[in-house]
């Protein structure tokens, strides 16, 4: 018992260290964003200030993040690219998942390998191959469009895995029953498949946006002369180092916390939907009922 108690103490200590390791750097970064020092550092503390968000230095020059027009342009580009990635990756991932779920042969294994391979490929290589292909084959150079394409290459794979996980729990007989009962293919998709997949579609869109928003390694090669938020941050870190970078960090962390909460809520809802199956949609309920009636009728005969 004594040795187990010791082990428990050890575990607690280790966990404390680990989470300190995880969070303290971020805490320092956030603290430096509110320090009046000209350099991004927490020590020495020169007083609380908001000037790295909005303010002017002694000569009246703007110092704040929100006064920076390039920053705003970069943020806007990131949002545009993120939206484009959602619009491209979610349908691609869904098509991939649906196709794979309808295949059984060895073809399935091969196609699966091809479609998940981008996840296991370094981001810089995805960026390079996208740039080469579009530049040489279609004469499309780096820019927002290519950023969407390059990022979607692997983000679509993540979406596909999300859809596949959801489809694994899907009762395929519902689909068959709908078709047998005379529903058209479109009706079946709209009233059975889409309601069932909705939580996965939402999480896929959210993950796609977040992945796109924070992507650097792929984007760097396909962005051309444009700027995104992450590219902008990296440039700032390398060149003019002011605590405005930390201010971005603060906003990023705040947004991340919100997104993480949103994601947790979505996941919980998805799990709840798994536990009580009938919540999956009106079409599914209808079919369940009629199928039950059919089997009941059959038994009576």
């Amino acid at each position: 018992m004594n040795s187990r108690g010791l082990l428990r103490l050890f575990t607690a200590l280790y966990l404390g260290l680990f989470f300190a390791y995880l969070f303290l750097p971020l805490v320092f970064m956030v603290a430096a964003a509110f320090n009046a020092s000209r350099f991004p550092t927490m020590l020495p503390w020169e007083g609380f200030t908001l000037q790295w968000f909005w303010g002017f230095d002694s000569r009246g020059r703007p110092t704040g993040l929100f006064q920076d027009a390039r920053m705003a342009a970069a943020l806007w580009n990131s949002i545009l690219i993120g939206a484009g990635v959602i619009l491209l990756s979610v349908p691609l991932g869904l098509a991939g998942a649906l196709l794979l779920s309808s295949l059984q042969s060895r073809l399935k294994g091969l196609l699966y390998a091809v479609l998940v391979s981008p996840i296991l490929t370094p981001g810089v290589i995805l960026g390079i191959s996208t740039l080469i292909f579009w530049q040489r084959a279609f004469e499309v150079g780096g820019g927002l469009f290519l950023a969407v394409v390059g990022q979607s290459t692997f983000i679509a794979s993540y979406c596909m895995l999300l859809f596949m996980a959801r489809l694994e729990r899907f009762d395929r007989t519902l689909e068959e029953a709908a078709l047998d009962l005379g529903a058209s293919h479109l009706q079946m998709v709209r009233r059975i498949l889409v309601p069932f997949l909705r939580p996965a579609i939402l999480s896929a869109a959210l993950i796609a946006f977040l992945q796109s928003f924070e992507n650097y390694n792929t984007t760097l090669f396909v962005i051309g002369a444009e700027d995104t938020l992450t590219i902008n941050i990296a440039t700032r870190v390398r060149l003019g180092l002011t605590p405005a970078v930390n201010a971005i960090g603060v906003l990023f962390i705040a947004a991340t916390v919100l997104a993480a909460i949103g994601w947790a809520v979505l996941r919980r809802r998805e799990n709840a939907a798994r536990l009580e199956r009938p919540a999956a949609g009106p079409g599914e309920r209808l079919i369940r009922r009629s199928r039950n009636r059919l089997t009941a009728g059959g038994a009576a005969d």
Partner: protein
Amino acid sequence: MSELFRRFGRLGGGLVLATALLWALLLIVLPQLWMVDLSFRPNLPVAARGGPEDGWTLANYAALWANPLHRTIFWQTIWSSLLVTLLALVVCYPVAFHLAQEAKGTQALLLATALVIPFWVNEILRTFSWFLILARNGLVNRLLLALGLIEEPLALGGVGAVMIGMVYAYVLFMIFPLYNALESLDRNQIEAARDLGASTWRIHWRVVIPHAKPGIAVGCVMTFMLAAGTFAVPQIMQSLPGGTNARWFTQIIYSYFFDGGDWNRGSAYAFALLLLCIFFIMAMMRLFRVGLRDIAK
């Protein structure tokens, strides 16, 4: 294939098939083939492309082999990435085990949420936070100065700093796969082993780790791939004093594309990096006896 059309009709099935194939071809297969093709050709001016000189050659790969600096950086990238992977595994295993097997209820939920938050803060900012700690005016130097242990700020840059940044940036790509694998381990197995008199070490070695194999494989593959293929971390950490010699292979590739303008050479280097990652994945799959399906989850 016929099942696809039976499920979604001719039009719907065709649409699904066409979309998935377009993704596979236009976004994945063709770009990679194009890159490989380019890597086996000489760098020619636009006018000479497709001409008699534009044949396949190994010159770009030979150049990598012949350049001692690039070769050194290549090996250094591999070696450091392996070390980062191993460190991440050692650091994460106890946390993942505790989270999956010992933590209960609210505590588990809180810990998991606490992990998710830094996971989504982007790579640049995560690295930047360590940059600030190791910088000339950073926390470490300030602390050592204040304690009177040093007189002058230390130059803390170098390969070590890059690796610290990487372990920090990628630790969570190790912990989640480990956690997923360990979560499915039946606690009774651990209890049974303990009741039968196995020591804690033995339980981990004979029961927990074998069960966690797919998770270990996935975590290692992800971490290694991210570490070997990163551009962001070394780029930022190099700005530290004394950090200029910590070059990463991806940076050579980048300079061939955007400073030197030799895309062919850059492609060859990129393909070499890709081959390395594929080799690592295969080795992990072999070593841990897992399939691609376990890896990409």
